[in-house]
C-alpha cells in the first residue's frame, strides 16, 4: 500500500515547535530550573531512573480514566478550554490533553495538576473544573497558567514520578528525596507563568496561597510559600511582566486590526480622500505611539537575570 501521509513532516514540525517552546520559556522561566530539568529530562543517567516510573505511567493513565478522571465533554467545558487556549497562546505552550476530575475523586486532586512524561509527548492538565469555576477569573488564570508553565518547563515528569511512585507504593520516599532539589526549584517558573496570565500581583498572590493550602500526600515538596511570594513579588518588578502588562493595556485600549477594517468598511460617513483634503485641511496627526500614550516599560524594571540572580543567592543554589 502506498501512503500519501508524510509523517516525517509532522516529526519536523514537532522538533521546530519544541525549539520555539524552549525560546519562549527562557523569556520568563528561572534559569537554574530550566537547566536542571533539561538534565533530568534528557541525560542518560537521569532517564535510566525516570523511565522506570514512565513504564508504569501509561498503565496508570488508563486506570485513572476508569473513574477518577474524564475527558472534557459538552458545551459546559468550552469556556475552560477557550481560556486555556488564550493562556497557551500567551505563553506559547503546546496544548496539553485536558482531563477533568470526576466528582468522586475531587478531594484527591488539587485544582490544577500537570502530569506527563519527560519528553512532553503525553502531557495532561488535570483540572477540578467545578472548584475552578468558583474562583475569580484572574485567580483561575493564575492557576491554569501555572499548570501550563510546569508543562512548558518540563516539570510534568516530576509530578508524574511523585504520583506514580505514591500510587504504586514503589519507593515514594526515595523518589521524593532524590528529586527534592528539583521539586524545590520547580515552583518559581510556574508561578511566574501564572503571574503573566493573571496580570496583577494581588490576585496572583491570593491564588498562590490557595494553591499551597493542603496539597495531596503525593505532591512534590515545592518551595515554601514565603519564598515563592518573595520571588513572585520580585518578578512582578521585572521587564517581562511590565512588557506583558503594557501590551495587554495597549490591546485593551486600541481596537484590533479586524475591528479597524470593519469600521472603515462600514463607516457611516464617507472617508475623505487625502488628495481632496490636502487643500483645505491639515494632514491628520499620526496616532500616538505606544510610548507617548503611556504604554512604555518602566526604566527601573528589573531584567530577568537580576530576578534570577537574587533568587539563586537567596536559595543558596550555587
Amino acid at each position, binding site marked *: *500500500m502506498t*501512503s*500519501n*501521509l508524510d*509523517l*516525517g513532516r*509532522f*516529526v519536523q*514540525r*514537532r*522538533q521546530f515547535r*519544541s525549539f520555539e517552546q524552549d525560546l519562549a520559556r527562557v523569556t520568563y522561566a528561572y534559569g537554574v530550573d530550566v537547566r536542571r530539568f533539561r538534565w533530568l529530562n534528557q541525560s*542518560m*543517567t537521569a*532517564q*535510566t*531512573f525516570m*523511565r*522506570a516510573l*514512565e*513504564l508504569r505511567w*501509561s498503565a496508570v*493513565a488508563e486506570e485513572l480514566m476508569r473513574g477518577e478522571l474524564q*475527558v*472534557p*465533554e459538552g*458545551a459546559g*467545558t*468550552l469556556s475552560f*478550554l*477557550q481560556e*486555556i*487556549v488564550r493562556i497557551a497562546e500567551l505563553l506559547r505552550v*503546546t*496544548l*496539553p*490533553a*485536558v482531563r477533568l476530575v470526576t466528582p468522586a475523586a475531587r478531594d484527591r486532586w488539587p485544582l490544577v495538576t500537570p502530569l506527563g512524561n519527560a*519528553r*512532553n*509527548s*503525553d502531557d495532561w492538565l488535570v483540572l477540578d473544573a467545578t472548584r475552578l469555576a468558583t474562583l475569580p477569573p484572574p485567580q483561575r488564570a493564575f492557576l491554569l497558567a501555572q499548570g501550563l508553565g510546569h508543562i512548558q518547563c518540563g516539570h510534568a515528569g516530576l509530578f508524574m514520578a511523585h504520583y506514580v511512585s505514591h500510587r504504586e507504593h514503589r519507593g515514594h520516599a526515595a523518589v521524593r528525596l532524590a528529586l527534592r532539589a528539583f521539586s524545590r526549584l520547580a515552583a518559581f517558573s510556574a508561578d511566574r507563568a501564572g503571574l503573566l496570565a493573571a496580570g496583577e500581583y494581588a490576585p496572583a498572590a491570593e491564588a498562590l496561597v490557595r494553591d499551597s493550602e493542603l496539597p495531596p500526600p503525593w505532591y512534590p515538596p515545592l518551595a515554601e510559600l514565603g519564598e515563592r511570594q518573595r520571588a513572585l513579588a520580585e518578578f512582578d518588578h521585572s521587564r517581562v511582566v511590565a512588557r506583558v502588562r503594557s501590551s495587554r493595556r495597549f490591546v485593551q485600549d486600541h481596537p484590533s486590526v479586524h475591528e479597524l477594517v470593519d469600521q472603515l*468598511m*462600514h*463607516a*457611516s*460617513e*464617507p*472617508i475623505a*480622500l487625502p488628495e481632496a483634503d490636502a487643500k483645505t485641511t491639515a494632514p491628520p496627526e499620526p496616532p500616538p505611539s505606544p510610548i507617548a500614550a503611556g504604554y512604555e516599560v518602566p526604566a527601573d524594571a528589573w531584567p530577568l537575570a537580576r530576578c534570577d540572580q537574587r533568587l539563586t543567592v537567596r536559595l543558596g543554589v550555587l
Partner: protein
Amino acid sequence: MTAEDPQTSGLHDRARELADIATQLGLPGLGEHILADTSRRLDRAQLRVLVLGEIKQGKSTLINALLGEALLPSGVTPTTGAVVQIVHGEQLGRFLVAPDGARTLLEPEPFAKLARGKQDYVGTLLVTTPSEHLPAGVELVDTPGINDLERFRSLISRGELPRGDAIVLVLDATQVLKLTEVAFLRDALTAVGGTEGTGATLLLALNRIDLVPEAERGTLLDHIHRELSAVLPGAVEVFTTDARGASKAPASDTLGVREVQRLRDRLRALASQSPTVLPTRTRASLQRSVDLLLHHTAVEARALRLESAALQSELKEVREALVQRRLDLDTIESTIAAGRAQIAQTCHDNLGNFRNELQTTVLAQLERSDLRQTADLLPGAIQDALLHFTYHEAERLRLALEQLTRDAIHTCGEQAQRRLAETMLNLGFRGPVVQLQPPSVGVEAGTLAVGVVGTAVMYFGNIVAGLLITVVAPLATMFLRERSIRSLREAARQSVPHALGQSFSELEATLLRAIDSHVAGLREYIVLAHNQLGTHLQALLERAAALGALSTPLAVPGELSAKPGDLPPKSAAPDPRHIALTELRGLEQRLEQLRLELVAPASPSPSPSA
C-alpha cells in the same frame, strides 16, 4: 395565581420578550402563538389536553364517553377531519370561531359537516358544554387521525403538539403499538420537551379492551411497558378503556367502563393541579420556543452570508417544497435517517482507511536508523497527523451535514458548523495518545554500568586491563545501545496498533456523537416548527434576500472606476446585511440568556428594556 405573582409576571415578561424577538425575526405569527399560549395558561388557567391517535381508534367516542354525552360525530368511517376544542360552558353550543375571535353559532348538522372535514372553513371549531364531567380548567382537543395524512398535515395537529399540556394517546387494544405510533409518540414527547420537569403529562388510553380476552390483558400491558421503556423512561399511565361500552351503558361495572371513569378522575385531578402545573408548563413551553427561535437565528445567520444568487435559489427551493408539501415530517424523517446512515458509514470508512495508512507509515518510520531521536517526537507527531486528518474529516462532515439539512428542509443553518467546532475544540485537547514505550531499565542500566566499570578500570586498573576495557567498553556499549533500540522498536511495533485502535474508536465515537447531535437537533427543529416550518423558512430567507437587495452591489473591476487608480465609490450607508447580522448576534445572545433564566425559575425577569 394573580397578576402580582412575581413568577407569573416574570414568565409574562419573558413571553413578551420572546414574541418581540420572533417579530424582529419576521415571524409575528409565532410571537402571537407564544403570547396566546402564555395568556391561556397563566391568565385563564386553561389546561389543554390533546386527544391523539390513529384513524378509527375511537378518539371521538372516548371524548363523548368522558363527557357523558354524544357531542362529537363518531361512526364506522373516519369521522374527524378537523380539530375541535371542547371547553366547559354555561350551555351547550357549537361554534365556528373566526381568527378575530368572533363566534358563529352552528346547528348540529352543519357542525358535524365541518368537523368531518367535508367543508372548508377558516377558524376553529369550538364546543361548549355544561357537562359536570368536564372540569372548568380543562380544554379537550379532538384531532384527526395521525395517519390520515391529508387531513392531519393540512390541519394543525402536529403543529399543536408543543402547545399541548397533556396528551391522551388513544391506542387500539387489538393492534397495539405499531411502529408509526411509537415514532409519533417520540415526536410528541420531543415537541412538549419530555415529561420530566416540564409539567407535561402523557396518558395512554388502551381502547376497546373489551375485545381482548381477560387472560391476555396482562401480557398486553407488559408488552406496552417494554416497548415504551426505550422511548419514555419511567412509568407510563395506561387506562384500559371501553369507550363504546361507556357511552352506551355508563353505569355498567365492566373494566373498560371503570377505566373511563378513572381517566375522567385523572383529568379532574390534572385540572386541580393546574395552579402548580401550568407555570411549569409555561416555562417548558417558552424554553421550546427559545430553542425554535435559536434554530431560526442559525438559519437566518447563514442566509445573510449567502450570495444573492445562492439565496434566491434556496428561496425558490423552499417555496416549491412548501407548495408541493414536501416539507412534511415523514418525508423529512426518512430523508434524515437515510442521510445519517450514509454519513456515518462514510465516516467509518474514512477513519478505517486513514488508520491503516497511519499504522503503515508509523511502522515504516520505526525502521529509520535515527529512531532514538525520532522516538521522542514520534508520539507527538502521530497526534498531530491524526488531528490534521480529523480537522479535514470534520470539514467534510460539516459539508455532508449541511447537505443533509438542505435535503431535508431545502436550506440550512449554522448548526453543523457550530457543533463540529465544539467537537473539534474538545478533540484538539484530548489528542490521540499513542504510547511508545521506552526501552527496559535493565538495558539502560547495563549500558550505564559498562560505562562506569570501564571508566573505573581505566583509572584504577593496570595498563593491559585498561587497554582491554578501552576496546571492549565501546563495543559493549554499542551492542547494548543497539539492543536497546531493537527493544524500543519491538515494543513500539506491539503497542502502536493497539493504541491507534483505541484512539480511532474514541474518535469515531466522538464524530458519531456530533452527527447524532446534529440529526437530533434537526429533528427537534422540524417537530417544533412542523406546521409552520415552510412558512417560517420562507419568511427568514425572504428577509435575508430583502436585506441583500438593499446592500451595495460588489464593485466589478473596470466598470465602476472611471480612471485607473481611482478608488471605487464607497457607500455612505452601512451594509444592511452587516447590521442585520450584528442584530442577529444580539438576539442570539439574548435568547441564550433567556434560556438560562428559564432554567432558573426563582429569579424574576429583568425588564425587557434593561
